[in-house]
């Protein structure tokens, strides 16, 4: 098989992986601070995709432009979800948290089924069928734009957590819950903000993904699983790990598919996950938990 096929497929896998990485970044941020695993993550992304669909149909604006208002909508959704529903479960057993978030996921899927129906729906932008050619390399234009947008959003998030006072406060909560309380931080509010920021990441990723693929209500659980595979591979709680995990999973699926059989693409992603769990259980960029 010609080498350009591998190059094309690898480029496509990396670009898609960046968008998946942004989605998983939200999961990682939420777990890293709030210590709650968001089992409704994929379903929240399909919600963002449907919001993109509705706004695109109404306003005819590019999903990459819609990215900001959709991230804001999901931020509010995430904030209210954490403040109203999840916060009372913070100190409850993990299985209670699990059941709550699975219930939220089921409600989201069924609400989307009722409102939007079961058929796949997509949007058609001016560049939906465009591709860039550089020598033998042909790259999907939608994926390039989506991946660039994912990089910008991820960079903004890194800067927020590193340089802003609010970001530092959130990190303080993540590092030492009791310490944060002692110095007078409003931890409940910061938790809700963090959940909102994680949801905003999902919103941004959903808007970008709408430029690349279609949405159905039932695809949510697959995205939840994908986000888990990515963050466990990269390191649960590590922001850089989530992006790296996305890139690795995207690349592994793409090359596994072309080298062996495409129907076993997911098998290679899970294979990578098993290797990481065997040899570096905390994930590639994750921190080892003492004890």
């Amino acid at each position: 098989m010609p080498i350009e096929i591998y190059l094309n497929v690898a480029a496509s896998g990396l670009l898609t992986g960046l968008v998946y990485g942004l989605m998983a970044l939200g999961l990682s941020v939420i777990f890293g601070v709030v210590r709650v695993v968001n089992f409704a993550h994929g379903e929240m992304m399909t919600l963002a995709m449907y919001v993109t669909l509705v706004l695109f149909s109404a306003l005819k604006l590019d999903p990459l432009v819609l990215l900001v208002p959709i991230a804001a909508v999901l931020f509010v959704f995430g904030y209210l979800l954490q403040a109203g529903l999840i916060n009372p479960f913070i100190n409850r057993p993990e299985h209670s948290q699990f059941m709550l978030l699975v219930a939220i996921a089921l409600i989201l899927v069924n609400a989307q089924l009722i409102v939007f129906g079961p058929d796949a729906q997509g949007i058609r932008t001016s560049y939906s069928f465009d591709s860039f050619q550089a020598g033998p390399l042909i790259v999907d234009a939608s994926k390039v734009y989506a991946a660039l947008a994912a990089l910008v959003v991820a960079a903004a998030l890194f800067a927020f957590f590193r340089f802003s006072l609010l970001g530092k406060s959130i990190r303080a909560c993540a590092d030492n819950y009791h310490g944060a309380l002692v110095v007078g931080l409003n931890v409940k509010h910061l938790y809700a903000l963090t959940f909102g920021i994680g949801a905003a990441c999902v919103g941004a990723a959903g808007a970008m993904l709408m430029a690349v693929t279609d949405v159905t209500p039932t695809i949510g659980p697959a995205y939840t699983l994908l986000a888990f595979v990515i963050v466990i591979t990269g390191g649960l709680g590590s922001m850089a790990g989530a992006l790296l995990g996305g890139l690795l999973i995207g690349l592994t699926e793409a090359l596994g598919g072309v080298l062996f059989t495409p129907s076993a693409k997911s098998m290679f992603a899970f294979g990578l996950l098993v290797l990481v769990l065997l040899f570096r259980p905390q994930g590639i960029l994750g921190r080892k938990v003492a004890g």
Partner: protein
Amino acid sequence: MSFDRRKFNQALAAAGALSAISPVGIVRAQPKTLKVGLLLPRSGIQAGIGQDCYRVVAITNGLLAGLGLPALEIMNGDTESNVDVARSRAERLIGEGAQLLVGAFDSGQTTAIAQVAEQRGIPLVINIAAAPPITEQGYKFVFRNFPTAPMILGDAFANQLEVFASTGVSPKSVVFMHVNDTFGQAMQKGFTGVMSKFTMPYKVVETIAYDPAARDLSVEVAKAKATGAEALVMVSRLNDAILITRELVKQRWSPQAVLSMGPGWYEDQYLKTLGKLGDGPISFVPWYDPNKKLAQQLEAAHHKAYPEISLNTNHVYTFEALLVAADAFKRAGSTDPKALADAIRATDIKNNVSPGPGILFNAKGQNDKLKNSAIQNRRGKPVTVAPKDAANAKPELPMTPYDKR
């Protein structure tokens, strides 16, 4: 005279015996409707198709009345696109009084339902399911008015030869891409065997299986393109057909022909989503004969009820399964499952919708006289291009390249 319990029982037994041998039997009214448990994947990954099949229910009783057939009382069963749920829903429908089952689009789910139907002695009329083993088990209560995978493949090759002869365009090499589910695997297994019975102008240079729930098929299309094949032979569902077409455009590959042997490529959603990029593929599928009277009646009723949706395989074969049920109920004059099964076995419906001589079942419960069609997307609508006696247009090959549309 005392009338103790023993005498009462003797009297009761005598009365029972008398009524049983009495020449003046108790006249029971023939039931007016038949309770049909309609099992379809109305949620889950196949929800779109299940909902599409279900659309025909709204117009069926009206058409049956026009044919002088009794009405059906439809009981809904959602299989949730899941084999285990299909089995339990079939059990539940029977428990709730279903006298006959119809379903269930997917071969895996239908196989599970067939086992339940046979165990419980309730007739099952399959609307859509192509896996051959379903009617190879010696079942007495399972009937299928839908072609098996080898029948679809055999007719597909015959119709392809007709199309190639008519257009003068014959690809020399193809890539065979198929969805990796029960239907796709059955088609893949049959493909090589059935193809060897025909003198096809092409050779298969690569076979590519892909995940039915795939979100991205760029790798699959890149792999197919790398072979340099002249055409694609597809066994798909709807979403993957759309994904593959998008990838063909993005990866700048316009094959001479896209020859589909399954759903997806001719469906309304495909045509609506892709616009002019959806024109050109030829689907070799169980379809309807546009020249038959009942097909025209069904098309008219369907258009009246759903002006935005074209009549398709899902509607035609779900309707014909219900037609078989109503016809058997009328002839059996009873809702007794065994009488219904016997009546279905003796079915001989000439006034039908699908191509071929009509609806009749062999000893295995399979309608082996069904014929399939070749339909091509033209200006956003599917037209029938083969076989000639069930066609309403001529085929056009090669496809217009995607960048010239």
